[in-house]
């Protein structure tokens, strides 16, 4: 249970309290970093985007509306930063995997070794995520992994709610298809 709410911390941060903002970072870093990684793929680049987002939030925390939840506010900043970085990126160095490689690894799945299976599952998921458009990755991550509603995701991404529903649908279908052979065996 959180004794101090996000809103309280944000208001203290807006008054210039770096410790209060640090507490917000402590709470929201995992989600922000996951969403940034969903958008960008590369963990280091995602952390850079997440750091930019938090520092921008610190500078602009005075513009946060305390009547609204803090999560979508910080996630909107983070998603914008990460998606902008992705658009500007010329070479996607973190996503060298191709569907061809995924097929070859899937075909060599060595029977009962759970650790190997987990490793291959991760690789398969990596490939499937890399094949999705960044906005779809963010949408499905926010919906299924972070528990946000379609409306909240629409607000974060600045797109209509119907677009988010469509993004989640297409992303789920692709991910489930890619993981089907592994999920069936469990």
């Amino acid at each position, binding site marked *: 249970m959180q004794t101090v709410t996000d809103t309280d911390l944000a208001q203290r941060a807006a008054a210039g309290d770096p410790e209060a903002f*640090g507490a917000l970072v402590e709470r929201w870093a995992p989600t922000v970093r*996951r969403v940034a990684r969903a958008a960008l793929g590369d963990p280091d680049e995602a952390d850079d985007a997440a750091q930019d987002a938090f520092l921008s939030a610190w500078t602009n925390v005075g513009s946060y509306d305390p009547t609204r939840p803090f999560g979508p506010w910080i996630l909107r900043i983070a998603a914008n930063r990460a998606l902008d970085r992705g658009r500007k990126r010329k070479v996607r160095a973190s996503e060298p995997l191709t569907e061809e490689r995924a097929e070859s690894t899937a075909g060599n799945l060595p029977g009962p070794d759970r650790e190997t299976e987990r490793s291959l599952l*991760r690789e398969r*998921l990596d490939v499937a995520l890399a094949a999705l458009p960044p906005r779809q990755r963010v949408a499905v*991550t926010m919906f299924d992994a972070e528990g946000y509603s379609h409306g909240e995701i629409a607000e974060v991404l600045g797109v209509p709610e119907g677009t988010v529903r469509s993004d989640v649908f297409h992303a*789920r279908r692709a991910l489930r298809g890619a993981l089907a052979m592994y*999920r069936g065996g469990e």
Partner: protein
Amino acid sequence: MIGNAFDHERDAELGALLRDHLGPAGHGAFVARIRAEVARDAATSPFDVLGSWLRPGLAAAAVVAMAAGWWLTTGVSHEVASSTTPVEIFASSGGSDYMLATSVEGR
């Protein structure tokens, strides 16, 4: 895993997979880095920012003042000294003859 990709329910299994897969390592280090940046920024007062602008501003103003002073003392006096006075211009252009002729004809 839920079969219908267009339903409104969370897919808990896919969600857990994504959280695990995208879950970043080094939470403590990341948070410490942001905290340090924020603390550094908070410790920097607006007067520090103004101070950082003041020094180059003063240096630029001093350079401009020196240049202006040099131009006023050296450049202008040299120009005045080397210029031709109106009397000399008048004399060299034969102006006195013209003025004399004009005044005689007027009579």
